[in-house]
């Protein structure tokens, strides 16, 4: 495609650029394949690279979860193919308990870091934040490239941990939370997988922390400094607010994890004792550590770990708000309340980490304080839900695939979030902590709700990114079994938790002489649920390959998309499809109104682009915040400036 070589700026915009002094020169589109697609500094290419990285990781993570379900459901069954693939982890095809635990660890690490943190922020955020604020790239394009390649390095190191365990099992077995002393001195206690596997796991996370920091800085500076003319903060799409809040959370939380990781690495390798107390024994000799505290790690880890939950879900909230409004053909209900709620969630998110530690041995009074703070965070979450419902009320909903997934997000967010009211109470946590109730809760809310946000985003922005729409029929066929499937998997887990089923158990029963024997009798009522959930998981995961097929098929064969196929209002829809290297083809968009002007009375179309100028005219009503009067534009492709 032809791209203009030089960016022409309007005097006003040039002035603005000079004023904020970001030193942001004109971009020349690279011509060589390597600079264009591999070591690219174009935020759009980098965004797609992040998405592909996340897609690879999510496939691995899903397959791991299926192996886990297989082990738990048919604990003694021999699968010859597994024996061939993992001679140490599944000798004779029967998975070992340590193999299961390494799957637990890798599944969690892979999903939390390389999927939930990477795709919504690094992927969609990278691609669309600069465009939605009207910038021609990120503030620091080279830093952006560096953060992607650092992330990829982290992934390579993590995957290598699977293969580098000295021939015992496939990887670290301490869970994604890596609690010491198990992760610090597990090798001294002869726990399989806790040697080199742990080192690589820590290194991978440390690399990821660095990458996230670089990314977060870039997001924050870009949003604050590179907004185009007229793009005041309160006119930004809610996606931008979400990416911004997420970046702030990442900036403040990842350094803590990085520091904790370094300390754990030293404990594990250099004989320090940050997290290992004295007087421990492996049954024959005293372990040569003293003075550390295992609970210190938990504080550091969850100081990062709880904001991380919001890092995973906030971009999904942003995308959902954006998409709901677009397909409801209605302005977002309570834009300001949505922004404040998002910020409240981000802020409170830093004061609730202790709810992961009620029964850790932490002071019970501290637990009580964390409990009250934790339930308060439900308030802004509820505000968001009310506003989504308010947005749909009186709407003219168009049920395209992105909208289905966005509605699914709202449903899942409610279903998963609301049980936080149970888990956030110190008293109730006495029984619920570390049971399947917790698994049901967080998988629904930060797992599949976040994934639904990504699906919605993919179906929604695919036409803009690749110039072709994803197949709508396949998209709908993908949606239905997926939403039925995820509810079938994760709602029953709450019931299992009530019964008392602890998490991270490789199996709950065993076959002795052809007879099923429960390891713990109290788990026995869950038998039908274990079976049901496993089959639901296998079917749901299988259906996801339909999405992957649709994705790649549509890249080449999808219906060609116009510049604004969804009749949306924000800046990504006023530029060409796909956007040129400098995003707006040498012009600088000027913004005249808020992001969600749908159904404006008197306007020629039921949507008014952010760039439609305010001019004197009869249609007073559709100017945002009474800032002027305007004339609607029927041409979705105009860039006014």
């Amino acid at each position: 495609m032809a791209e203009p070589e030089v960016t022409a700026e309007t005097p006003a915009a040039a002035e603005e650029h000079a004023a904020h002094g970001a030193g942001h020169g004109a971009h020349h589109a690279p011509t060589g394949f390597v600079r264009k697609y591999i070591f690219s500094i174009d935020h759009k290419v980098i965004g797609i690279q992040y998405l592909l990285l996340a897609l690879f990781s999510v496939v691995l993570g899903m397959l791991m979860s299926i192996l886990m379900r297989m082990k738990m459901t048919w604990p003694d069954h021999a699968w010859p193919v597994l024996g061939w693939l993992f001679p140490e982890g599944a000798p004779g095809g029967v998975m070992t308990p340590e193999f299961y635990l390494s799957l637990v660890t890798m599944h969690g690490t892979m999903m939390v870091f390389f999927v939930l943190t990477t795709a919504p922020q690094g992927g969609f955020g990278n691609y669309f934040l600069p465009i939605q604020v009207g910038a021609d790239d990120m503030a620091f394009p080279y830093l952006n490239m560096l953060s992607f390649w650092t992330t990829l390095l982290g992934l390579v190191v993590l995957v290598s941990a699977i293969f580098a365990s000295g021939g015992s099992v496939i990887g670290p077995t301490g869970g994604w939370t890596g609690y010491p002393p198990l992760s610090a001195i597990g090798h001294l206690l002869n726990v399989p997988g806790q040697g080199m596997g742990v080192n690589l796991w820590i290194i991978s996370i440390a690399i990821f922390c660095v990458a996230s920091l670089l990314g977060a800085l870039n997001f924050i500076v870009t949003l604050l400094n590179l907004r185009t003319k007229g793009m005041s903060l309160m006119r930004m799409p809610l996606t931008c607010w979400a990416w911004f809040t997420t970046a702030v959370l990442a900036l403040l939380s990842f350094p803590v994890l990085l520091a904790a990781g370094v300390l754990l690495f030293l404990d594990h390798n250099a004989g320090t004792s940050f997290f290992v107390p004295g007087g421990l024994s492996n049954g024959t000799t005293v372990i040569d550590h003293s003075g550390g505290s295992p609970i210190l790690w938990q504080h550091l880890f969850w100081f990062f770990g709880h904001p991380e939950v919001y890092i995973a879900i906030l971009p999904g909230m942003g995308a959902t708000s954006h998409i709901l409004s677009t397909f409801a053909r209605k302005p977002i209900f309570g834009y300001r309340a949505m922004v404040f709620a998002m910020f409240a969630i981000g802020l409170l998110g830093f004061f609730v980490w202790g709810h992961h530690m009620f029964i850790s041995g932490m002071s019970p009074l501290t637990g009580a304080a964390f409990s009250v703070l934790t339930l308060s965070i439900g308030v802004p979450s509820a505000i968001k839900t009310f506003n989504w419902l308010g947005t749909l009320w009186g709407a003219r909903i168009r049920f395209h695939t992105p909208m289905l997934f966005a509605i699914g997000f709202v449903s899942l967010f409610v279903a998963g979030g609301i049980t936080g009211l149970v888990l956030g109470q110190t008293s109730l946590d006495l029984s619920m902590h570390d049971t399947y109730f917790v698994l049901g809760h967080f998988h629904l809310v930060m797992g599949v709700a976040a994934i639904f946000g990504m699906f919605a985003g993919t179906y929604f922005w695919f036409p803009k990114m690749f110039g072709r729409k994803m197949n709508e029929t396949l998209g709908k066929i993908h949606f239905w079994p997926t939403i039925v499937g995820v509810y079938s998997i994760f709602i029953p887990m709450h019931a299992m938790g009530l019964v008392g089923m602890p998490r991270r158990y490789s199996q709950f029963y065993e076959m002795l002489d052809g007879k099923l024997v429960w390891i713990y009798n109290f788990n026995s009522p869950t038998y039908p649920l274990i079976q049901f959930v496993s089959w639901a998981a296998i079917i749901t995961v299988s259906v996801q390959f339909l999405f992957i097929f649709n994705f790649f098929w549509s890249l080449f064969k999808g219906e060609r998309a116009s510049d604004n196929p969804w009749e949306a209002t924000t800046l990504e829809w006023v530029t060409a499809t796909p956007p040129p290297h400098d995003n707006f083809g040498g012009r600088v968009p000027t913004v005249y109104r808020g992001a969600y002007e749908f159904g404006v009375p008197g306007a020629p179309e039921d949507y008014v682009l952010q760039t439609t100028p305010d001019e004197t005219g009869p249609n007073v009503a559709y100017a945002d915040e009474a800032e002027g009067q305007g004339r609607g534009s029927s041409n979705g492709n105009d860039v006014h400036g």
Partner: protein
Amino acid sequence: MGRALAVFLWVMTGLSVWMFLSGKWWFPTAISEHGPAYDQQFLLTIIVVGVAFVAAQAALGFAVWRFADTGQATRAVYSHGNNRMEILWTAITAAIFITLALLGQRVWWGLHLTEAPANATQVHVVAQQFQWNFHYAGPDRVFGRTKPEKISDETINYIGLDSDDPAAKDDTVTQTLVTRANTPVQLTLNSRDVTHSFWVPQLRFKQDAVPGLDVKVHFTPKTVGQYEIACAELCGQQHYKMRAYMLVLPPEEYDELVALPQAQFNKRVGELVKKYPVNTHF
């Protein structure tokens, strides 16, 4: 499409509610003094959660059913929100959530922020991979000294009891937790290797056993019987079967047992374990 989605949301909501109401998957019967208060708080919470869940899903279903674009001549309602409603629903949810949070401290407070009653029996719990050790002070009611360098699995000294200490002479270490019905028991939890977690569903009680830290907790078992103790914190490859049992004995049987010298204590526990079958009242 909107109607199908609405029907799905309602059916899913109904099935989810049914799962909780069916009674097939619920807590095992509580056997601790705080158990009924726990169950009551859970019930209150799950009702609030259930009502909110049903209301939100039903409303979402209604919206997608009712407000579909069917090619109407009129546009969607043009509204940017309603501050009065924002304030109203923020205030209502805040009031409900904070009330729940405060009520949710009651059981916690009673267990964790009050001293163990003076008549509480004392047990030291030392967790290890993948076994629970329960240390009794014996008739002298003084716990013998333990030292990490004395720990030796080979000589069956799992907790490193120091035989040089006279107070240790009458101490007993068992792998079954024995408690006295209707009498508070104070556990002092510790671990000799990694973090474990003491978990008995029927007690409605869970507490991590943290290496290097003596965590004192207390509760009162009420119902005589034998119950399973599980580990609830990932502790290694055999985590899934780090199992022990808790006996809740009638007072006279308990008193008789703890007066026994070391050699007969474990033998008697073996007999009692057979006498009281493992609880399967779920």
